[in-house]
C-alpha cells in the first residue's frame, strides 16, 4: 500500500530518478521544487547550483513525464536566514560551516518536511545516496550501498524524528552512471545534466570574494605560532584551517616547506600558519550534537554516564568523518560534560571548528556534533 510522498526535486538527475522510483513503488507522489533564492538566475551556468529558473523547469518537466502534480515552494527567506546568514556568521567567527548540512538540517528535513507533514504527507523523498534501515531500536541511517557515492555524511544532522519520514530511493544504486542510464531510459532529458557541486549560493565559486563583499576586508597579520609576522591578509574570515593555497607569504619557512593555516582568530584579525605536522589533531569535541536514531546507550554501544550537564556515555569504538569526501578515521567517542568528545586513534589533519564530525559505527550513522574545539597532537588549539 502506497503512502503520500513529497518528492523534493532540484532539477538534477538524482532527484528525478528518486521521484520516478517513488512513483513506481506505488506511492502517491507530489513533486516540489524549492525556490531558495529571491533573485534566481535564468539559466544554469556550468555545473553550479540548483536554484536557477532553468533548474525549476527541468524539475517540472520530469514531474510532467511522471504525471505527478508539481509545485514550487518558496523557502528563500528561511534559506537566507538559516543557511546563507549562518554561513556568513560562522566564517566571521573563524569557523568553517557546511552549508549543505545546514540546508538539510533546517530547510529540507525541517521546514519542508514539517510543511509536508502538516499537508498530509507521510514522507519526503530525495535523491540522496544513503539508506534508511529498520534496526532493533527503530530506524537507522546507513551509508549507501556504494561507498564512492555515499552521501550519508551530509545527512548526519538528521534527527530520529526526521529519519522516520525520510525516503531515499537511490540507497542501493551502485553508481551515478546507473542513475544516468536509468534517467535516459525513462526519457528524462536531465540524464546528462552535469552534477552540481560547490556552494549553490556562490555561483562563481569565489567564496573568499563573496565573503569579502559581505563581511568587508580588513588587513591583518599572518603569524607563526611563535608570533613572528610572515605576511598579511585582507580579512581573517576568508581563511580555513588546513588551507595552503592563496596565503601569498612573502618569504618561505626556514626549512623551505609549505605552510598551512593552523588557526583563524577573527577577534584580533590574525591568521596563524605553520608546518603541516602542526595541523595534526588527536581529539575533537563539540557540544551541539544530534543522533539519527537510537543514541549510543540505547544502541547498546556504551554504558550510560549522564552527569550534571545532561546525557553522557562511556567511551565506545567508532569512526569519525569530518568532511563530505574525507576518509573515516578510527576513534573512540564519549559524551561527558555536555560534549561529544572524539579521541582519534591516528592523527587527523586540517580540522576546523564549525565542521561537523559525523560518528559512524560500521555503516551506520550514529549522529554528529559541530566541532567547537580540537586538541593538537602537539598542543591544544582552541577556537577562542
Amino acid at each position, binding site marked *: 500500500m502506497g503512502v503520500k510522498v513529497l518528492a523534493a526535486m532540484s532539477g538534477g538527475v538524482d532527484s528525478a530518478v528518486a521521484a520516478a522510483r517513488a512513483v513506481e513503488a506505488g506511492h502517491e507522489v507530489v513533486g516540489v*521544487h524549492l525556490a531558495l533564492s529571491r533573485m534566481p538566475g535564468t539559466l544554469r551556468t556550468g555545473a553550479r547550483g540548483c536554484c536557477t*529558473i532553468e533548474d525549476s523547469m527541468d524539475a517540472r518537466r520530469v514531474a510532467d513525464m511522471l504525471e505527478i502534480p508539481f*509545485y*514550487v515552494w518558496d523557502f528563500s527567506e528561511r534559506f537566507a*536566514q538559516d543557511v546563507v546568514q549562518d554561513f556568513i556568521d560562522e566564517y566571521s567567527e573563524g569557523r568553517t560551516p557546511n552549508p549543505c548540512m545546514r540546508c538539510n538540517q533546517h530547510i529540507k528535513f525541517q521546514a519542508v518536511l514539517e*510543511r509536508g507533514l*502538516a499537508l498530509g504527507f507521510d514522507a519526503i523523498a530525495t535523491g540522496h545516496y544513503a539508506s534508511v534501515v529498520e534496526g532493533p531500536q527503530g530506524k537507522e541511517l546507513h551509508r549507501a550501498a556504494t561507498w564512492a557515492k555515499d552521501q550519508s555524511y551530509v545527512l548526519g544532522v538528521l534527527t530520529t524524528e526526521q529519519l522516520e519520514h525520510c525516503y531515499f530511493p537511490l540507497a542501493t544504486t551502485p553508481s551515478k552512471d546507473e542513475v544516468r542510464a536509468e534517467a535516459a531510459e525513462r526519457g528524462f532529458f536531465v540524464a546528462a545534466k552535469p552534477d552540481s557541486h560547490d556552494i549553490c549560493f556562490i555561483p562563481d565559486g569565489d567564496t573568499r570574494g563573496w565573503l569579502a563583499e559581505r563581511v568587508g576586508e580588513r588587513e591583518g597579520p599572518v603569524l607563526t605560532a611563535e608570533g613572528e609576522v610572515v605576511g598579511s591578509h585582507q580579512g581573517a574570515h576568508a581563511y580555513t584551517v588546513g588551507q595552503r593555497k592563496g596565503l601569498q607569504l612573502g618569504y618561505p619557512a626556514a626549512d623551505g616547506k609549505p605552510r598551512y593555516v593552523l588557526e583563524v582568530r577573527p577577534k584580533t584579525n590574525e591568521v596563524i600558519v605553520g608546518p603541516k605536522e602542526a595541523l595534526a589533531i588527536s581529539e575533537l569535541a563539540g557540544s551541539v550534537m544530534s543522533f539519527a536514531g537510537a543514541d549510543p546507550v540505547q544502541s547498546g554501544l556504551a554504558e550510560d554516564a549522564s552527569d550534571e550537564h545532561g546525557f553522557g556515555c562511556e567511551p565506545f569504538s567508532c569512526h569519525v568523518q569530518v568532511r563530505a569526501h574525507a576518509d573515516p578515521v578510527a576513534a573512540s567517542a564519549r559524551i561527558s560534560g555536555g560534549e561529544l568528545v572524539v579521541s582519534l586513534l591516528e592523527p587527523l589533519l586540517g580540522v576546523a571548528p564549525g565542521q561537523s564530525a559525523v560518528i559512524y559505527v560500521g555503516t551506520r550513522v550514529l549522529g554528529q556534533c559541530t566541532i567547537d574545539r580540537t586538541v593538537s597532537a602537539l598542543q591544544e588549539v582552541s577556537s577562542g
Partner: protein
Amino acid sequence: MGVYLDYQATSPMPESVREVYVDALAGVGNPSSIHQAGQRQRAILEDAKERIARIVGCEPIEIILTSGGTEAINTALKGAVWAAQAARGPDTPTTLVSTRAEHHATLDALQWLSTHEGTDIAWVPVDDQGVLDTDSLEVILADHRPVMVATLLANNEVGSIQPVGEIARLSLEAGTPVHVDAIAALGYLPINFAELGVTAMSLSAHKVGGPVGVGALVLSRHAPELSALMHGGDQQRGRSGTLDVAGVVAFAAALELREQGRIEHGAHLAARRDSLREQLCAAVPDVVVRGSHDARLPGNLHITVPGCEGDVLLYLLDQHGIQVSTGSACQAGVPEPSHVLLAMGLSEETARGALRFSLGYHTTEDDIEAVASVFPRVVEQARAAGMASGR
C-alpha cells in the same frame, strides 16, 4: 478539469470560437497582398475589426492589432516617450504618471523607461481598496508635464473599477493623453472607448475566450502617432508584422459571444460571486475581502486569509480539483507578495495570504458549493502548515 475559477488568468475557448478559428486558418493569402486571395483575407480581417470596434466603441481604423496585451501596453507607453523625445529632442525630460497597483506589463515597461530613457515616473497613490486617488492625480498633473497617464480600467487582481472618466477629464484638461489597460475588464464591463475620452486602450483576446497571442491597442485617430516598438513593413499605423487573420476572426467571435453573455448573464455572475463571498466569510469569519466593495468586476472575489500562505491554500484547493490564483505569478512559479496589495497598504505578511477567485459566465452554483464545502478544512490545514514552516 475540476472547478475552474481562474478566468482572469485565461478564459477557455468556447467550441464555437474554436470552430471559427480553425476554419479561418484554412484561408489562403496574406491580407497585405494585392491579388484576389489577399483581398479576400483583408476583407475577413476588416470585418472582424469592425465587429470588435462596435463592441468597444471605437472606429475600426483606431484598432492596431498586436501579439497580445503586453505588446499593446508597451507600444502605448514606450511609443509615447519615444515620440516625445523625437519631437522635443532626445535629452528632453519625460514623465509618465501611473500607480503601483498596475499590471506587470505596465510596471515593468515603466521600470524599463526609467532605467533606459531616464523617464521620471510620478506615482499616484491608490486607496485601501486599490482605487486611484484623483485628487493626487490632479496635483501631479499640475506639477509635471507628463507624456501620458497610464491607468487600469479595472484592477486584474482585486477587481476594483477605476474612475477612468474622471481620470480622463482631469488629464485632458491638463493636456495629457491617457492610456487605459482594459484587459481585465473586457467582457465583464460595458466599454465605450469614445465615451471614456481616453487616448489609448489595450485589449487581449485570450481573457475573453479568444486565442493567446492576439490583442489590440486602440489608439484614437486624434492621438499623436506613437513611435514603433518593432520595425519591418509598417502594416498598420507604425506596427509591423504580418496580420493574423484567423486570430482576429477568433477574437471577434469570442468577444461577441462574451458580450452576449455579459448582457444576458452579467447579473447572475455577480450574484454567484456574492454567494461565494458570503459562504467563505461565513465558514471562516476572519477572511478579509479585498478591493472595492461596490465597484468591482462581477466575477472577481479577492480575499486574504490570516495565518495562511497563499501558495499553500492554492496547493490544497488544487488537490481538491479547484483552480484559483494567488493573484500574482512570477516566472519561477513562486508567488511573490502581491504588489497590488502592498500598494493598498497591506503588510507583506497579510499579502502572503491572498487568494483570487475569478468566475466565468459558465460558473455554476455547484462549483461555488464545491469550494465552500472544502474551504474550512483547507484553511485549517494551511494554518497548520503555516505554523510548521513559519518562524
